[in-house]
């Protein structure tokens, strides 16, 4: 159940294993002889627990909600269908939210276009894993997986035990250095065991963020919140006096025992199940052995995200029936443009993908992994980035653009609006110079 970017996960593993290895190899030997043999024993137990919870977090299903079957999606479509009033050029998707009352608190459920379902309360769609995850907490790049309903416990225990492990190693290393320094001076002690110095530096710098994170998650566990809800401030007092957290059990103790010792919901993914090809919108999709299918699905998904499902429709012949089933092909550009001025989609996506509670990865741009994934996927992501940028720029330059659009939904676009021009990068906008570097990222493939 690993997402595509696993580099940081290996970094986490290496850091923990190398630091602990140095500790066991050098400091423990000295400390076991001079202080007590309990030191390596406790350290070993901690190390095993840390690694076990780390692997549990990384390799277990975070609580992915399987995608809806074809009939189910069709039924939801039927329920949601709203008469489409308005000219064909100004298509607006029907409102896709549903309100439910949970213990007297109104909670809005959003429809997920990718998974074709109304996300249950507390669930959210992870753009990196491309799945809806129940009780979505956040996507943690350090463990290379989403943190959700099924692995939050392991994640919390991982950071808790890691902070203890970190403090333990730091304390032992200092003891080691001080004991050695008593026989001689401090500099010779550092020369005698250079490994201790490395460990001390690693521990000193990592302990702050890890302990901080553990403290933050302890607060979340005690109040039965997720990072996602905490960041959004879903149940804070600001939103009104009667806003409370409907998921809380009432007391700190009950919340803790619910998270740490509560029942373990089994994975709902059918890993051994057959994969229904795209034509019937597989509901078994996910799991390591279906990576290929997921990738190809995610291509379609990206399109839908930006509101241009009709393009997908043409390409795959069976997708995109949800947003614009009766839209004539020329309206593609219109739909895409309508979504654009809001610019919300782009921002939202960026936020979800790269929020981490420790804030270290926050500001990085989405990495370009066009080479590692199939040519349609990684590259495609960037095309859309570029496309939207181009269009936004163009919008900024010419104000009459919208007017042209409203009146001419058909094929009478002025020259720059043709599809091929959108995708040919810089050639379409020779006048815009400011953003050239951003736009010129490869846009050579066709739709």
């Amino acid at each position, binding site marked *: 159940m690993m997402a595509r970017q696993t580099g940081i996960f290996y970094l986490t593993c290496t850091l923990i294993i190398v630091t602990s290895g140095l500790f066991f190899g050098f400091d423990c030997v000295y400390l076991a002889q001079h202080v007590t043999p309990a030191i390596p024993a406790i350290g070993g137990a901690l190390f095993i627990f840390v690694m076990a919870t780390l692997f549990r977090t990384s390799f277990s299903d975070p609580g992915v909600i399987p995608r809806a079957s074809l009939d189910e999606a069709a039924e939801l479509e039927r329920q949601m269908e709203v008469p489409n009033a308005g000219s064909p050029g100004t298509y607006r998707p029907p409102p896709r939210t549903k309100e439910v009352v949970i*213990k007297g608190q109104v909670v809005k459920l959003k429809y997920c276009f990718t998974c074709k379902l109304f996300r249950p309360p507390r669930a959210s769609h992870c753009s990196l894993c491309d799945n809806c995850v129940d009780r979505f907490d956040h996507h943690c790049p350090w463990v290379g997986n989403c943190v959700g309903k099924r692995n939050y416990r392991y994640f919390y225990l991982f950071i808790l035990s890691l902070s203890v492990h970190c403090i333990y190693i730091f304390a032992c290393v200092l003891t080691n250095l001080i004991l050695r320094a008593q026989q001689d001076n401090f500099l010779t002690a550092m020369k005698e065991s250079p490994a201790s110095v490395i460990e001390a530096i690693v521990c000193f710098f990592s302990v702050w963020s890890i302990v901080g994170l553990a403290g933050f998650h302890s607060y979340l566990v005690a109040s039965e919140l997720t990072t996602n809800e905490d960041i959004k401030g879903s149940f804070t007092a600001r939103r009104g006096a009667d806003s409370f957290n409907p998921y809380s059990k009432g007391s700190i103790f009950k919340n803790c025992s619910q998270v740490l010792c509560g029942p373990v919901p089994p994975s709902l993914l059918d890993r051994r199940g057959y994969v229904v090809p795209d034509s019937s919108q597989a509901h078994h999709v996910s799991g390591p052995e279906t990576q290929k299918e997921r990738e190809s699905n995610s291509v379609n998904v990206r399109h839908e995200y930006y509101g241009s499902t009709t393009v997908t429709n043409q390409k795959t012949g069976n997708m995109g029936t949800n947003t614009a089933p009766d839209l004539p092909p020329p309206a593609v550009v219109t739909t895409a443009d309508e979504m654009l001025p809001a610019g919300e989609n782009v921002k939202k996506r960026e936020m979800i993908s790269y929020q981490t509670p420790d804030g270290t990865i926050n500001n990085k741009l989405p990495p370009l992994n066009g080479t590692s994934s199939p040519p349609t996927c990684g590259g495609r992501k960037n095309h859309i980035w570029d496309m939207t940028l181009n269009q936004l720029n163009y919008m900024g330059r010419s104000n009459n653009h919208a007017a042209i659009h409203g009146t001419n939904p058909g094929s009478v676009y002025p020259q720059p609006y043709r599809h091929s021009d959108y995708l040919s990068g810089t050639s379409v906008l020779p006048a815009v110079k400011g953003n050239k570097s951003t736009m010129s990222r490869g846009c050579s493939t066709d739709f």
Partner: protein
Amino acid sequence: MDNMARLSSSQCTKVFLQRDFTEGTGVRFQNKFPQELEGKIDRAILERTINTVNSIYLEAESLSGRTYCESCFACMTAYIAYLCMDTHYEKCLKKVARYIEEQNKTVFVQQGLMLVDPAERGLRVFEICILTEQQNR
């Protein structure tokens, strides 16, 4: 049985009962009687079945002493114990599967209906197939 179910369920009309979130995020299905089943099955029978299924899920998700001990024991073994034991929740899901199969055999198939185990649908919906009706699409 499994193959046959798949074959027939792909063509027939389906009725979906959605999740009921009024009590929280626990698994629970609405026991409102769907209009499409009017005249096909007795209201009381369907309601009883759904209530039974709901109560098994409630049992699975409640924080009983047993789950508590189970989780603590697993934690002691650094969660390696989960590799070789079924959790209480999994046992409950199997119980639901058995119950639904039995209900299908004894009651529903005779009435031309078939219940689908919600676990097969990711616990999103409770699906009821009307075997006698072809899907019109």
